[in-house]
Structures are given as C-alpha cells and as structure tokens.
C-alpha cells in the first residue's frame, strides 16, 4: 500500500483501486479542535479538485477537495459522532472517505511522505 500527499494537506492511501482520503496531521493542527465533518454520500462522483467534504472547527469551515477523480464507496461514519478522531488520529482512524479510483495516472504528480515533510517545513 502506498501513501500520497497533496499540497492541500490531504493524504491518499491506495489499496488496489480503492483510495482512502484524509487530512494530514499538519492540517488538523492548523485547524484546531474539529467539531464537525461532513463526508460525501456513497456513489457520489468526483472529478479531481471537486469539493468533497467539509471540516469545521469552532470559528472556521474548510472544504476538502477530492485529490483524485472517482466514485465514493464509503464516508467515515465514525466522524459523525466523534469528529475529534480527526485531531486524535488524522492519518488513521480519522480518515474522511474512500473512493474507487478512475485514473491512477492522477497520482503521479503527488508527493510522497518525505517530500510532503519538506513541503510543510517550507511553509
């Protein structure tokens, strides 16, 4: 399984053609206490860059863009009751949604973990 990162601070795990998407530890740190996450419904189709989810802290709401094109297979329902999971385990239990990848080629331009780390340090 390989993990990719975007400049919008999302991570993508690829398992076969199913991609799991979440926000990075850096992003949750910037947002502060997460109070609500709106995840997409099953079957929803996204093009790369579409607004896919919303993550809210007390004083801010941020859109999460789909880093790749595909069809949603599952939103993380655990976040409905416990949005704090995004703060506690952003790159694990706090994932946002899974989608069936349409074009694996879209992953090519994305960063790996070490490149993302350098990217964050440069901010």
């Amino acid at each position, binding site marked *: 399984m390989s993990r990719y990162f975007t400049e919008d601070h999302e991570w993508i795990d690829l398992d076969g053609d199913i991609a799991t998407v979440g926000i990075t530890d850096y992003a949750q740190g910037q947002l502060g206490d997460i*109070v*609500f996450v*709106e995840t997409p419904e099953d079957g929803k189709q996204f093009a790369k860059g579409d607004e896919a989810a919303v993550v*809210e*802290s*007390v*004083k*801010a*709401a941020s859109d999460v863009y789909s880093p790749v094109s595909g069809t949603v297979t599952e939103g993380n329902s655990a976040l409905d009751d416990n949005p704090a999971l995004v703060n506690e385990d952003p790159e694990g239990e706090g994932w946002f949604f899974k989608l069936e990848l349409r074009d694996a080629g879209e992953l090519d331009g994305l960063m790996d973990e070490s490149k993302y780390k350098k990217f964050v340090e440069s901010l």
Partner: protein
Amino acid sequence: MRYLPLTPSDRQAMLAKVGAKTIDDLFADVPEAARLDGPIRDLPPHASEMAVERHMSRLAAKNQTAGDGPFFLGCGAYKHHVPATVDHIIQRGEFLTAYTPYQPEIAQGTLQMLFEFQTQVARLFGVDVANASMYDGSTACWEAITMARRVTKRAKAILSGGLHPHYVSVANTMAKFTGDHLVTATPTLTAEPDTADLIGQIDDDTSCVVVQYPDILGRIGDLSDLADACHAKKALLIAVVTEPVALGAIKSPGEMGADIVVGEGQSIGVGLQFGGPYLGLFGCSQKLVRQMPGRLCGETTDSEGKRGFVLTLSTREQHIRREKATSNICTNSGLCALAFSIHMTLLGEAGLRKLAAANHARACQAAERLSKVPGVELVSDAFFNEFTVKLSQEARPVVRALADRGVLAGVSLGRLFPEAAELANGLVVAVTETVTDEDIEALATGLQEALA
C-alpha cells in the same frame, strides 16, 4: 447637543493630540467635490426633547389605534394584551443596549434568555430545536423553503392557498432570483383547508409543502396525512404558524409530523406596531439542524466547570462561511425574542391554555352572533380565534364604512387578494381575549346596518 459629551475645549485638546489643525483635516481623504459644505438642505437645527416629542405626538394622534374601539383585525398580526412586566423588563439597559452576544462571558443574560426562548419555541411547535429568531414570519417562511431545497436537493415547493398572501409574495420575489420553482394557489371559500389538493400534487421533484396552520382564512385541519404524503416522497412538510397562541389549544404541527415549523411570534409579547419589528420563529427536527439559518445558542461549561451558554454552530453563518452560508441573516429580532420569552414565562402552560381558551371562546361567541346577521355566512366551522365570513356584498367598502363608525371590523379579502374577484365578499374576523361583549355587539350591529 444633549447626546454629544465632547466640549469645545475637549475637541481642541484632542485635535492637538492627533496633530490636526481643524476637524476638516481628518476628512482630508474625502475628495473636495464630495464634501457637503453648509447645512443639510431643509433640515432644521437641533431640537429640544420637548419639541421632538410634540412633533411625534401630533403624528401619532393622526392614527386610529386598535385600543380606540372595537377591533377585529388579524391575518398575520394580532392584538393581544401585553403585560406591563414585559415592557418594563425589555427596557432594562442591560438588555436594550447590549449587542449580539459575541463575548459570552459578559452576555450570559442574553444567552441564557435565548436558550430558554429556543426551548419554549421548540416545545410550543412540537419540534426538537428552534433558533434564536428571524426577522419575521414571512422571511422565516422563505428561509424554510430554501432550507428544504438544501436538505432534499430539490427545488420545487408547493405552497398552500391558505398561506398568507404576503408570505407567498415574498417567496415569489425571492424565487425569481434563486430559480426555485413555486407552485401557488388562491384560497377558496370552502369549509376545509386545501390539504387534499396538496397531497395530490406531491411528486418526486417536490422539496416541500408549505401549509399555514391555522390558515389565512382561520381554518384548521389535521396535518398528519399531509406529513405522511410528504415523507412518502422524501419531501419535507413546512408548517407556518402566524398565531402562536393557537398552539395553547390545538395540536402542534410537530406532533402531526411537520419537519420544519416557522411562524410569526408577534402575538406573544410584541404588540402590533404597524407591522414591525416582529419576531420570526424557526424550529425543526434535530437531524436538520446543520441546515438551519440564523443564530443558535447552546449550552457548555466555562474553564471552572460552571454551566454557561454560547452562540454555536456558527460555521453555518455568514460571518464565517461567507458566500457558502445557510443564509445572509446577521441581526435578528433579539429584543422581540426577549419580549416573547418573558410573556411566555408569565403565562406558563396554565396561563397559555387559559389565554387560548379565552380567545377561542370569544371567537365562538362572535361567530355565533355574526351568523345571525342577515347577509353574513360563516365559511368554516373549525377555527381557533379567527374565522372568515362571506358577506352578501363586497367586504372592502363595508370595512371602510365600519371604520368611520369607529369599528375596525376585520381584514377584507379584497385587500389581501385584489385579483381574486370570487373572494371579494370575504371578511376575516379575528377575535382575541381583548374583545368584549360590547365589541361583538357593535360589530354585529354595524354589519347589519352596512349590509341592509
């Protein structure tokens, strides 16, 4: 000028501090051409408190007030007795001259009041939650329609013919710009509300059905079948209550399955005020709360663990979400919500039930008496404190003629529905606890003579 504390010497000292020679230096960024030199056209110089009060009193005296004589107007605004306590408390400076509670540590008074208000409104409407108020019933109604669009992701709303025509007019105005599809109707002078017609129109594109309860003609009917029909098509039922006192006597829309209940809270604590400020009420089921417009107050604790209240779920609102907000509303009707809440606290359940019973009893007395007037026919037999009668001639001139005798007889349907000739003989009569036996007799006699 009595409201301006700076003295000429203060101004001189302050100008020196800021490094300006004259006040004009501080307006240096205003282009020469846009500066208004010389006095404002026609506006006289400042006036004493006595002079202004005299001017305003003279204007006030030109109006015939609801308290001047027999009074039977309703249709979205009702004359009820407002207890003296209400007006006393809302004039306390700590409520009157406070701002929106953005700093909760020093706004717990307003916040706790709003939490109590939200609870009172939710219980009265029979729904899970209510917000901290909207401008008025008509704008709350439109906001409910847009909320149903967001929830169902459909844009066709079916509006009952029994919905207040001004509310329909507001929705029509807005829908022209938002692209919502509204299905509207004109009421008919029948005994039953148009529930059956509405059920027949619901389809898979319908986002919501909007029904007024009691409706514009004062009629009431069970909403349960309508709610079921909406839910069968995954549409929402929006109920609009323009006379909240009614819910002290009749079932709440929430009990009958309405998903969103909005209304005009003016009846409780606010007074007539020629149409504003009024109080928009907005309640809904818990699962829809994140699509709600307007401010919400919620419970929490402070850093010492004491219970306290804050404005919450603010990410729905314009100051955070900007163009993606659920509504553009900012200022709402805070002080009117306070008036409502105080009046409701004074009433309590026992008082509200008595008040509602008194309204209904008076209305029944009036209906009975008016039915005996030749040329007056009661349209419906199920109502709360407002009913429609069909006169033997056009109602508008009759209302006009009675006003000259000091009787404000009701709202003619010709005023509300000028296009609908078939409604021209309709007169909507509201009868609240403020009406006396003598008032009813004066109305009956007046109608008898006008129709003779």
